[in-house]
């Protein structure tokens, strides 16, 4: 064996692989824990910070690498796949689609949003299962009656769709409007909740 080959061969056994994700969490250097989930309306990636559920990212319109890129841009690149931090949210999503759950009860982390966006999402979260509202009504609810477009944008930036039910907000007149995972997903969610749409 040549000297070069011998150098390239390992000097001794490799140490057991460290749990770098756990190290990051222990040192406060963990930006996001993510997990994949298949939903009847399409695949998603769920993401959690140490404060709560931070994102449900649809993979209906982009692939996983692009989704992780968006999450890294919003939350930081120290992202690890780890099922545990989103276990409760995933269980509740399963129950929602099985028809045994109509409300969500998981802490969400909306820290990256503006105060206005949070106000809109808080108002949206109050719309019950099976009911719908409009961008205009939601604008009125938060005391900004002419802010329809801004309300629409804030809903479009909803990081935790389904859990905060932005699919329940339609255009005045019943047109579906837009949706983060594509408008077909919105239609299927409303159908699941028994809402008849135009």
């Amino acid at each position, binding site marked *: 064996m040549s*000297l*070069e080959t*011998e*150098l*390239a061969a*390992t*000097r*001794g*056994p*490799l*140490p*057991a*692989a*460290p749990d*770098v*994700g756990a*190290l*990051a969490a222990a*040192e406060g*250097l963990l*930006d996001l824990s*993510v997990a994949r989930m298949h939903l009847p309306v399409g695949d998603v990636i769920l993401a959690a910070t140490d404060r709560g559920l931070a994102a449900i990212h649809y993979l209906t319109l982009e692939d996983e690498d692009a989704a*992780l*890129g*968006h999450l*890294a*841009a919003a939350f*930081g*690149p*120290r*992202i*690890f*796949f780890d099922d545990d931090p989103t276990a409760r949210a995933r269980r509740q999503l399963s129950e929602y689609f099985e028809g045994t759950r109509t409300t969500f009860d998981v802490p969400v982390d909306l820290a990256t949003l503006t105060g206005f966006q949070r106000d809109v999402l808080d108002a949206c979260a109050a719309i019950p299962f099976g009911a719908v509202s409009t961008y205009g009504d939601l604008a009125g609810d938060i005391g900004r009656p002419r802010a329809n477009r801004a309300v629409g944008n804030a809903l479009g930036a909803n990081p935790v769709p389904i859990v905060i039910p932005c699919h329940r907000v339609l255009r005045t007149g019943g047109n579906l409007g837009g949706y983060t995972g594509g408008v077909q997903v919105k239609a299927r969610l409303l159908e699941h909740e028994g809402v008849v749409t135009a």
Partner: protein
Amino acid sequence: MTLPPFGALVDEHRDRLARFCVAAVGPTDASDLEHDTWLAALRAYPTVVSDQNLGGWLVTIAHRKAIDRWRTGHRETATDQVPDVPAAAVDVVDDGLWAAVDRLPDGARSAVLLRYVADLPYADIGTELGCSEAAARQRVRAGLSTLRTTITREQP
């Protein structure tokens, strides 16, 4: 440019990094060196400006931490063995070659490890050692030549 998730970095480059750590400080200290490297990489990752050659970036972090250990006497060299240690007590993988690598001057030791264990190109070795690509090539050659002489001399 978006950086890949740190977890993907671990999956892709862990073996190479661990091999470098073992070669640089020996199997006993490798685990500590690897731990320190991941911690430093986690701290620095949000400020990394290029997603090119992240494996090489990890190796250079480990290399700098290895140098600190070499200089503060963490060496696992044959010369550090207590003189009367029986042969059977010496770690079998720490054979003549690696004892000779450990005895190389730091510059040559770095050059040989970065080239043959970490598989860095000469240009990157030059950047890491603060010299030209040609000088890096020369250091690797000189390091190998020293190793050959040392090992030959030690053959019975």
